[in-house]
């Protein structure tokens, strides 16, 4: 019985310290440097969309001139 109570108290202590700990953030990911890969991928996609919009814009400009 006493063993169980001790275990419960210990568990409660652990959980409360966990709750009061700093909110979990992706700091390790950042320190590993891998987040830059994600940034690069997103930047590539956005650059692609931008290039597509520019092409579309130029095409429309050409049509506007030829009409």
């Amino acid at each position, binding site marked *: 019985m006493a063993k169980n109570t001790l275990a419960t108290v210990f568990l409660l202590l652990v959980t409360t310290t966990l709750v009061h700990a700093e909110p979990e953030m992706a700091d390790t990911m950042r320190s590993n440097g891998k987040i830059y890969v994600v940034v690069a991928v997103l930047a590539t996609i956005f650059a692609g969309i931008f290039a597509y*919009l520019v092409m579309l814009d130029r095409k429309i400009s050409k049509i506007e001139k030829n009409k």
Partner: protein
Amino acid sequence: MRSWWWKILGAVLTGYTIVGGLLLPVPHLDILNETIRNLYFHVPMWFTMIVLFACAFYYSIKYLRTSDLRDDIFATQYTNTGIFFSILGMLTGMEWAKFTWGEWWSNDPKQLGTAMCMLIYFAYGILRSGIKDEEKRAKISAVYNVFAFAMMIPLIFILPRMVDSLHPGNGGNPAFAKYDLDKYMRMVFYVAVPGWILMGVWIATLKIRPELVILEKENADLYDFEKNIK
């Protein structure tokens, strides 16, 4: 190409948001954790939608004054692009809500308000497709658009603020104050909003210009005559 500078500016600002939004430090908060970065991407969708609907509102009133079908094209395409951004805003909001509030949809007053606003604007498209006559379609949908914009303001800005809500800035909370305290978040968020607005307007103009070419070709006599007078 009439002017490039604002399109490039929009792309540079948005590109900076993607890089800065992921790399710059954010406040460490419970529940939100890293999802706080969604603020840079989810909220600008709504700002862009509001600006595009405001443009549509302006051109709808202009159409009612001028009866020029070109203004009708502006109003329609600004509305369509606004609806596109509202869908993006709704989807990103639901994704964010699932992992912070626990449910995709929790009947939050702001969720309900924006959903109603979106339905009102969806009906705009249905209304237009139901009328064959061009002039009649333009006139009726312009009147409807003015009412839709007038409905959007209480649905998005007023009603959600009068009741308790999961969204920050509602139920008596000052909008954004919690986040705006952080200078890094301000550095990204205040850039993201104009960046996405410029991108949204650009996309809308890409839809407007071909429509204008078609209209002016179909009514060549009228518009050539107009040009000759000028």
